[in-house]
């Protein structure tokens, strides 16, 4: 039997908002296999971002366990979690979150600083991924000299450059026009197919959601719907 990439067991997450305790996730149990291209949908406040944060080792659950590639990360220390993030997980954000004072090249290079690679290997890897996202000519430009779509491409290259098992994207297309959003999703889908990297992205845009091979719908902190779509059913869904 294969090991799932992500395994959540009865996850609960609550936090205090002023004097009120808010439960963002309740009893979420979920398994994601390597190579999946998963859309996480739901209204805002449904717990999408909280779920991504927990899977991304950015936060700890109030109850339940999280396993990443068979490793229980629930009880790990902060430095160990940082280590896992830098090696196994890539992040793509709605607002791109590039470092403004670094060039596109340096932004992509940054996560590699924790990967223990030599200078030349780093340079090669960065160049390879800038080519992959079609920005080889924009390497020296700072984020403020790039368009929104180009910035998100840099962010994708940055997420992929460490060759992670899992890429988490929180509303990656929400700040882009629909054409650019489609291109970004094509790029992510292409990388998913070529490298087998698992993608989990939160979105409430139905056009984006419907291009995923699996759709998980969250409602009030619980999984309301979890559908794995075959290629045929996906085409059918897209056509209608």
């Amino acid at each position: 039997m294969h090991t799932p990439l992500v395994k959540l067991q009865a996850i609960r997450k609550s936090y205090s908002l002023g004097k009120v305790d808010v439960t963002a996730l309740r009893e979420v149990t979920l398994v994601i296999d390597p190579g999946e291209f998963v859309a996480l949908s739901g209204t805002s406040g449904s717990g999408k971002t909280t779920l991504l944060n927990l899977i991304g080792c950015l936060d700890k659950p109030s109850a339940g366990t999280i396993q990443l590639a068979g490793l229980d990360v629930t009880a790990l220390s902060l430095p160990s979690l940082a280590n896992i993030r830098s090696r196994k997980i890539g992040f793509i954000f709605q607002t791109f979150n590039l470092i403004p004072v670094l060039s596109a090249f340096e932004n992509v290079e940054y996560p590699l600083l924790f990967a223990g690679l030599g200078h030349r290997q780093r340079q090669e890897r960065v160049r390879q991924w800038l080519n992959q996202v079609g920005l080889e000519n924009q390497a020296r430009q700072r984020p403020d000299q790039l368009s929104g779509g180009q910035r998100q491409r840099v962010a994708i290259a940055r997420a992929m450059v460490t060759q992670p098992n899992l890429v988490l994207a929180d509303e990656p297309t929400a700040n882009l026009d629909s054409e650019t959003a489609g291109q970004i999703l094509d790029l992510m889908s292409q990388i998913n197919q070529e490298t087998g990297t698992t993608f989990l992205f939160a979105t409430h845009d139905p056009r984006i959601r419907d291009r995923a091979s699996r759709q998980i719908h969250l409602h009030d902190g619980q999984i309301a719907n979890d559908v794995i779509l075959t290629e045929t059913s996906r085409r059918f869904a897209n056509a209608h």
Partner: protein
Amino acid sequence: MLTRIAFRNVFRNRRRSLITMLVLIVGATALILFGGYKEISFYGLRESTIRNRVGHLQVYKKGFLDSESQKPLEFGLENVSQLRRAIESDARVEMTVPQISLMGLVTNGEKSETFLATGVESDKDQKMSAQRLVAGESISDKETDGVIVGELLARSMGVKPGDYLTLMTTTVSGSLNGLDVRVRGTFATGMKEFDERAIKMPLAGAQQLLQTQKIERLLVLLKNTDDTDGVKTMLESRFVQNRWDLEMRDWAALATYYHQVRNIFNGIFGFLGIIVFLIVIVSVANTIILSIFERTREIGTLMAMGTRRRQIWAMFFLEGLMIGVVGGLLGIAVGSAVGELINQAHIQLPPPPGYTTGYNLKIMLKPSILVTVMLLSSVTATLASVLPALKASRLRIVDALGHI
């Protein structure tokens, strides 16, 4: 890469960095100017104290310093010509100056005042130029009973050059003696209390009044103040070799007023330093705090990608250090330039307390001051960034990422 990020962030918000740098520059300039003024004042006061009054070294007969004299010149020096030749043979020595100081009553026939007289060789006295002649002419060895009188004492006695006064004091044998003297001139030293009592007379005149051939002390003046310790050591061993019954003091032990002024100035300088230190701390801390607030999401992103908390801390700490170093360097440049401008401008200052004459404002741009200011500026700016940097490194990643 973190260093690169820190460095580029210093120049990211140009206006804010500029204001912070300006605070550093103004602070550094204030310290350099005050420090430079302090140093030139110390230097001027030291040299004038030495060259006009106490000399670099003073030689006395053994016992002079510790024993209480029962009679004038009980511990005086006799037959000093051999001693003077021995001292003056050293190339570092400029001259030796025999002196007698005596106290007594001065009267114009109607009114009496206490006086404080110094007997000195006239050519040496002119070289030391301890006083500024206000009227008449200087003392001369040819006229042993010709004296010059402090301006304020002359006014109190109602005398002018050419008038006569009578000095009365106790001789070395303990009896009273008087001497009619002619006022050759009046002088001012700038020190009011001194000018109210002071008389200068030829050494021979003083000896005549005291009925002795002795002198009280021998002042040694050097070409360069830095040689004081070397010459002192040399003389000490020579005294022992020749079995001369002598003892010595250097200017540092004699110039009490110099040390008092120095302490006061250093206190003020320290206080000013603390104020600048506080202003710089608040200003740099404010810059770093604002910078952290603006970059909270960036910090979250960096941490999400695996950057350790101590690296985040180091990044902001480095930013503070860079602001401090750059600001300090600019501060030194600006401070030195302003100091140089002030030196070129020949600004006249009013007389300091206790003095009657003004002087030129000068700033001494001593390397030690510049180094101190540089260190103070960088250390302060770095210290100011410690706490904000710690705050940044303790942010929760999810909170930082959710920050708008």
